[in-house]
């Protein structure tokens, strides 16, 4: 059994592969739905309706998609350089915490700056916090050859404990009646809503613009070329004079910064403060989104909307039929594995002899 390269990826294959992956995913997930004893067709219809079937459904899906686009972007640009940043979850939380530290209302953590400046400070603090978390993994990888997957993963646990410590201590909201939540962000820093009487906020536009920007940088600039070169073959890139270490460190920082920004945008657009459950694993789901998108920043936008729709739809579906909401996680993880295989099948032929 061996794999044989098909040569150049045909445009038809590039379109067929993701659809084939989605079909396989829905078929596998159908087995799980049937196992729970629910009617498969009705369950899928409810998920679709809950995610995309109405104005309200769309607004909830787009709200959920906003942080996912950003964590997806963070993963996509890093993975492009074969830098496996699995720490977006921690970077999101530390970014959210930094945003509230810069723009918080109570407890003397806020700075007395005019609103536009304070907003800029909030965004910068969050991006910086996310980037900061990537310094150790990036240096450990480039200087000592430590695998960044393990360091970024372990940092997630450290950050979550740190956030919990802050919510119990210096950044605790004294008015929250003992709930572990941070002080609130100043009201004037909150992002405007895009559509009235929904939760969709301007963060969605920020995410889409950033995705376009990331696409342009990767596609059109020398730096983007270097990132792709390092990802394709680091040794060849070094031989060709690409500054591999510098490129890796810059990509790491950019990836961390985007994930940190996701935290600020969640706080400013949706929650208004930091809690320990503000992200149901957005950082990890971002990895799946990046893979579904084939690491293409524009694809990330579409993949994030799809995954967000599945999650929102599964939430509303489980109120109607007896299928646990974890079906969304099953769908997402099967989609990742199916997409991996589909991408491979688009590029290689499997020869049995």
């Amino acid at each position: 059994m061996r794999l044989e390269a098909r040569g150049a990826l045909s445009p038809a294959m590039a379109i067929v592969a993701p659809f084939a992956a989605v079909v396989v995913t829905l078929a596998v997930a159908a087995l799980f739905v049937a196992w729970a004893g629910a009617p498969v067709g009705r369950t899928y219809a409810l998920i679709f309706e809950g995610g995309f079937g109405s104005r309200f459904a769309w607004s909830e899906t787009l709200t959920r998609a906003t942080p996912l686009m950003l964590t997806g972007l963070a993963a996509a640009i890093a993975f492009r350089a074969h830098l496996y940043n699995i720490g977006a979850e921690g970077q999101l939380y530390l970014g959210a915490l930094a945003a509230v530290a810069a723009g918080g209302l109570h407890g003397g953590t806020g700075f007395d700056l005019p609103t536009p400046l304070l907003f800029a400070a909030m965004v910068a603090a969050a991006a910086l916090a996310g980037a900061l978390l990537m310094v150790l993994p990036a240096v450990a990888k480039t200087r000592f050859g430590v695998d960044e997957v393990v360091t970024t993963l372990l940092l997630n646990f450290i950050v979550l404990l740190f956030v919990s410590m802050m919510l119990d201590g210096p950044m605790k909201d004294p008015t929250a009646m003992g709930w572990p939540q941070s002080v609130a962000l100043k009201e004037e820093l909150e992002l405007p809503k895009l559509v009235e009487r929904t939760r969709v906020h301007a963060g969605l536009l920020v995410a889409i613009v950033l995705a376009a920007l990331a696409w342009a940088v990767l596609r059109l600039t020398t730096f983007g070329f270097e990132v792709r070169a390092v990802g394709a073959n680091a040794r060849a890139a070094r031989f060709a004079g690409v500054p591999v270490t510098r490129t890796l460190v810059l990509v790491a920082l950019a990836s961390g910064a985007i994930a940190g920004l996701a935290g600020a945008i969640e706080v400013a657009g949706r929650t208004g403060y930091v809690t320990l459950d503000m992200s149901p694993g957005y950082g990890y789901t971002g990895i799946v989104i990046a893979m579904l998108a084939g690491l293409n920043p524009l694809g990330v936008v579409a993949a994030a909307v799809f995954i967000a729709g599945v999650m929102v739809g599964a939430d509303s579906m489980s109120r109607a039929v007896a299928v646990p909401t974890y079906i969304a996680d099953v769908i997402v993880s099967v989609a990742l594995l199916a997409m991996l295989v589909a991408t491979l099948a688009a590029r290689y032929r499997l020869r049995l002899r």
Partner: protein
Amino acid sequence: MLDALVAMLANADFWAAVLRIATPLVFGTLGVLLCERAGVLNLGIEGIMVAGAFTGWLAVHAGAGLWTGVAVAAGTGAVFGLLHGVLTVPLALSQHVAGLGITLFASSVAYYAYRVSFPNVTTPPTIQPFADMHGLGLPVLAAQTPLTLLALALVPLVAWILARTPLGLAVRMVGENPAAAEGQGLDVIAVRVGAIVAGSALMGVAGAFLTLSAFNAFFFNLINGRGWICVALVVFAGWRPGKALAGALLFAFFDAMQLRLQQADAGAVPYQAWLMLPYVLSILALVAVARRASYPQALMKPWRRGER
């Protein structure tokens, strides 16, 4: 403070706790080690531990014996290991991404199955876990369950298989130089997939130790990064089973110590700072040994027959 430390070290309960905390890490680390000696990084461990913890516990909850539960957990690990093996060895997909995919898949399937099996429970149902071995009459071992003994016995066994048997040689060869291994007539794909399946079975047992011995129930965030810590411990151990045991014990020593100090300092240091310690130590250990780490030469290098 120093008195408290001395009293702690003189206490047999403390050492019993060290051994107990180390047990799942020993299973998990040996599992990762087997995969990596064959040249494959298995980041599926975190999810495989969740799945093993769940299925082992579910079997016992459904009326099976405890050892059957352990076997079910091992089988669960082997199934996910086979999936990982197929994706990373013959299909040669990215070991990073496939491993994370397995972790997401295995843990979401376990949580989904838990919710399907127990739709309306608020407190996790419990089982009667393994009893300790008071019959042995040894101070530290008596407080352990037979699973700890199994973990300790597996260390020399795995070391012996790897170092002294043709099978172990085959595993090491495909992890160091698959082309040469094939030249010797070895089926690289079969050996690699076999090592991943065996290693993943151990990861399943690592998870089952938590539900069948350390605790008596399955709950969310049960594994809580223990799998990732095992991945770090293998690097720390330089891919040697004996050192892996030493690493797991050292790690468990610090973990048991932070638990005691957390109680002793009466809240002077936030408890979260103590809980961070194991993760911080893992990162430090990785960085400390990385420079002189001698990785299996073909680790994370997919092997395609006929390609250089």
